[in-house]
């Protein structure tokens, strides 16, 4: 045990007076005080001071009145807390006891389900629609390609590329003019070739002459650059529809298969171009779908057109 000196004695004095010391330390304190007069006086003095202070302060008590008020206040506070807590439970409980509460709640639940389901369907459909939007760049490229090739097709010579050229680009595009033979009565095939733009977008390009107007049918891969959101969503037959847009004087109508985009470009007014697109592009789409291993739509469901892009805006 540490030796008890005057310094230790003073340090431990408070604890000694509070009777917080171990028996051994207590004993050491008393032994030290017995032999050391200043510490003995200090101990007595501190004890006197404590006793004097306690004596004086013991008389300060809360008045009975204040104590009563305190108790009443606590009880009121507890009751108030209980009322608040029980309040909403009672109200909720009471609702269930009303005679028409259960049928009304069932109706509300059904209504919520119906409205929620419809909203979910619309939301999913809207997502699907925006996911299937073709990119502005694709439309611009198609217009540029038409402008580039159409003037050459105006001449006398019919230009048909070699089968190897189509084979090298896209086997499915070989002989598209034959697929369209029955649909192009009154139209003159001027060219069937494969062409490309500087940025790498390539097309199988069929050009028809109808009256004095040149009409392009373009087939190009449905890749990420072809899609507005840059992602390739799965395409089931129900989702495909025509998307239309303008580039200067050109009208463009586009359809999609799972792997390809078929576009019809001409100077014809929008409505006429749309009809022509249905006439020319849909048989090609059906043909491509067969090749892609999907079911062919002989009669295209016009009502399922899901997105019409005009001036770049979804309508």
């Amino acid at each position, binding site marked *: 045990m540490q030796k008890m000196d005057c310094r230790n004695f003073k340090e431990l004095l*408070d604890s000694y007076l*509070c009777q*917080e010391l171990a028996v051994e330390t207590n004993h050491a304190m008393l032994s030290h005080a017995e032999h050391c007069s*200043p510490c003995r*006086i*200090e101990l*007595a*003095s*501190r004890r*006197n*001071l*404590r006793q*004097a*202070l*306690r*004596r*004086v*302060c013991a*008389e*300060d*008590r*809360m*008045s009975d009145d*204040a*104590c009563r*008020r*305190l*108790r009443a*206040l*606590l*009880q009121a*506070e*507890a009751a108030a*807390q*209980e009322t608040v*807590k*029980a309040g909403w*439970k009672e109200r909720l*409980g009471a609702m*269930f006891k009303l005679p028409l509460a259960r049928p009304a709640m069932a109706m509300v639940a059904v209504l919520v389900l119906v409205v929620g389901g419809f909203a979910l369907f619309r939301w999913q459909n809207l997502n699907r629609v925006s996911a299937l939007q073709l990119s502005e760049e694709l439309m611009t490229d198609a217009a540029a390609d038409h402008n580039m090739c159409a003037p050459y097709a105006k001449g006398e010579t019919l230009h048909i590329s070699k089968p190897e050229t189509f084979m090298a680009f896209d086997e499915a595009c070989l002989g598209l003019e034959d697929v369209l033979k029955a649909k192009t009565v009154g139209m003159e095939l001027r060219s069937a070739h494969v062409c490309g733009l500087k940025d790498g977008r390539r097309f199988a390009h069929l050009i028809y002459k109808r009256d004095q107007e040149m009409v392009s049918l373009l087939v190009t891969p449905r890749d990420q650059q072809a899609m507005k959101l840059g992602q390739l969503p799965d395409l089931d037959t129900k989702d495909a529809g025509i998307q239309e847009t303008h580039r200067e004087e050109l009208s463009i109508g586009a359809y999609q298969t799972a792997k390809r985009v078929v576009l019809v470009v001409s100077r014809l007014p929008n409505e006429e171009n749309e009809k022509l697109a249905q006439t020319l592009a849909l048989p090609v789409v059906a043909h491509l779908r067969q090749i892609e291993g999907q079911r062919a739509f002989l009669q295209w469901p016009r009502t399922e057109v899901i997105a019409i892009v005009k001036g770049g805006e979804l309508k």
Partner: protein
Amino acid sequence: MFPDSAQNSKQRLQTFEAEALGFTDQLYRVALRLCRNREKAEDLVQETYLQAWRSFHRFELGTNLRAWLYKIMFNVYYSGQRKDRLHLVPAEETIAETIAYDPPTPQHLTEEEVLAALERLPRDFQIPIMLADVEELSYREIADVMEIPIGTVMSRLHRGRKTLRADLAKYARTAGYKIEEK
């Protein structure tokens, strides 16, 4: 359908009253030194108990309830008088420093004399002395309750007692006691 919580709440209040209301006088004594006004001190104690009741669900039974109540009381007091937070004022320190010895406390002092000496003591010293010598809180508890470092508690206690004893020694001299000076 819902559990009857009223009974639980009633029991909880009974527990709180049984455990906590025994300390009203002790809290009031310190509140009186803080407020120096009976009415205000009663209000302070009342507010302390209200706050304690609202937080009672967080209190762990079996731990130091008295120190917890003191702590709440000082919080309530401090929040009511932000500018009046107890802190050492240089002038008060110099008073204590000028006393070169610890005069012994005479045994036969009247209550008025002790009370007057206590009242004369600066509050920064008075409160720690009250908490230590009257309420028997440990240094650590005082530091925690007053939100001051434990070293400051010890220094205030030492200086406060010195000042108090020097003051009380005057009464002893006038009463004819012989003071043994170091």
